[in-house]
């Protein structure tokens, strides 16, 4: 069963008002809750008192200039960095407190987190072994992101688009309910971009949540329901897409207003 299929069945459960799956603690919490999050590196305040949350079934664009604190926020959310103040919870808990985190959250922070000498399939196998995920699932996600044909090639021979797909395959291994992606469209060709957009929409329609950091505003405007903007570490906006745009105002106009209009 694919992520989207599984997500679809979850959504059907929700619509039918069926009880929560036993042991599925935390389902009533927002998918992501970032509260007064602050992260300092010495004198530098990378993230300054940021608060927002994500609900299931939505795609949220996470926007901001370079160095605004997007990646730092994501790293704290995913347990890779400790907050200086506040907290970032996923499904009501800190990342490290989840039993099997990859079965709840799939994340891609960098487009090239692979050993160049390892094949794409073997990269996924290392993750599957550590997460105790069946080898069959590796083949499923390879098919899902459509890179079976190059799966046995070493990653150093991959184009950036193939690496993006391989990263996404890794994020999907555990059949997660939340996807956290940093610049996932970077390096994808137009067919790949459309494929990704469709994939993320289906994922959210199936009950999943997506948090996608991006600079490609035109692409974001086509793919997201909500937008969270941070600028110089502080929250600049947290709104539905159509609250920011409309009446001839594009997402780019809104973004440049919110972030001071400076080139970054």
């Amino acid at each position, binding site marked *: 069963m694919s992520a989207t299929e599984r997500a679809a069945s979850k959504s059907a459960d929700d619509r039918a008002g069926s009880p929560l799956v036993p042991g599925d603690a935390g389902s009533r919490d927002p998918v992501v809750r970032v509260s007064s999050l602050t992260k300092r590196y010495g004198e530098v305040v990378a993230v300054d008192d940021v608060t927002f949350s994500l609900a299931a079934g939505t795609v949220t664009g996470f926007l901001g200039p370079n160095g605004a604190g997007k990646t730092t926020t994501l790293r704290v959310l995913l347990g890779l960095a400790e907050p200086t103040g506040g907290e970032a919870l996923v499904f009501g808990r800190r990342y490290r407190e989840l039993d099997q985190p990859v079965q709840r959250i799939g994340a891609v922070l960098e487009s090239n987190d692979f050993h160049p000498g*390892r094949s794409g399939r073997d990269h996924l196998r290392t*993750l599957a072994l550590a997460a105790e995920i069946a080898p069959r699932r590796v083949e499923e996600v390879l098919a899902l992101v459509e890179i079976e044909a190059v799966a046995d090639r070493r990653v150093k021979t991959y184009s950036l688009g193939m690496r993006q797909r391989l990263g996404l395959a890794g994020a999907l291994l555990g059949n997660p309910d939340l996807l956290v992606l940093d610049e996932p469209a970077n390096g994808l060709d137009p067919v790949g971009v459309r494929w990704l957009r469709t994939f993320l929409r289906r994922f959210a329609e199936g009950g999943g949540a997506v948090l996608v950091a991006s600079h490609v505003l035109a692409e974001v405007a086509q793919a997201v329901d909500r937008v969270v903007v941070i600028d110089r570490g502080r929250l600049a906006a947290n709104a539905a897409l159509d609250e920011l745009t409309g009446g001839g105002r594009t997402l780019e106009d809104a973004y440049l207003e919110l972030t001071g209009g400076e080139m970054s």
Partner: protein
Amino acid sequence: MSALLRAELFKQRSTRTALGLFGVMLGLVLFAVLLHGLGVASENADSAREQLTIVLGPGERIGALFAGLLGAMSMTAEIRHGTIRPTFLVTPWRGRVVAAKVCASILIGAGFGLVAGAATAAAGTAAFWGRGIDVQLDGGDYVLLVAGTAAAASLWAAIGVGVGALVRNQVPALIGLCAWLLFVEGLLVGDVADISSIGRYAPGAAAAAITGQDPGTLLAPAVGLVLLALYAGAAAAAGAFATSRRDVA
């Protein structure tokens, strides 16, 4: 835990790094031991102590060094290539990841050491025969050489994981291990007796002691083994602690 160990062993099998290190190690062991065996003055190789220390000792040291490099790279290569991020996303309990790397490196390091020890024994003995030097080593000496090199290399692999986790940057970690084992230790256990009295407690000297080298100057094999195990435990614990505490870039 066993799942993490399987994952770490698979990481080692699925790139050419470990095989490349193994090949270079084997070539260097044969080269160094043959060179010492063929080059040593025969009056400097007529006792078991001299044969073991002067001719066969370099093989042990190379085995331990390459096992240490393997262990260090199990950490630093993940940091260098960014795979540390997916690794910690799957297993956010970082101390367990380091522990699995220590276990995997000990297993592979033991294999490195076993081969290094056997190659050392074969090359050294061949050199003695070729030159008509009487081999003064008995079966027990050979067993201690091979098993001791395996033990020394496996524990140095664990030290390497700790060093890699503490240093993080690959090039300084690997250069540091090479410089320590090939250069600094040689100074510590040199001809100056009052330095040797302290230098024999250094981790490279403890590893050499396990194979029975330089009795009297170095520690007894069992004491060397215990001491090196303490070094390995301390390095691994420090690496696990630092990795758990520090943010991942």
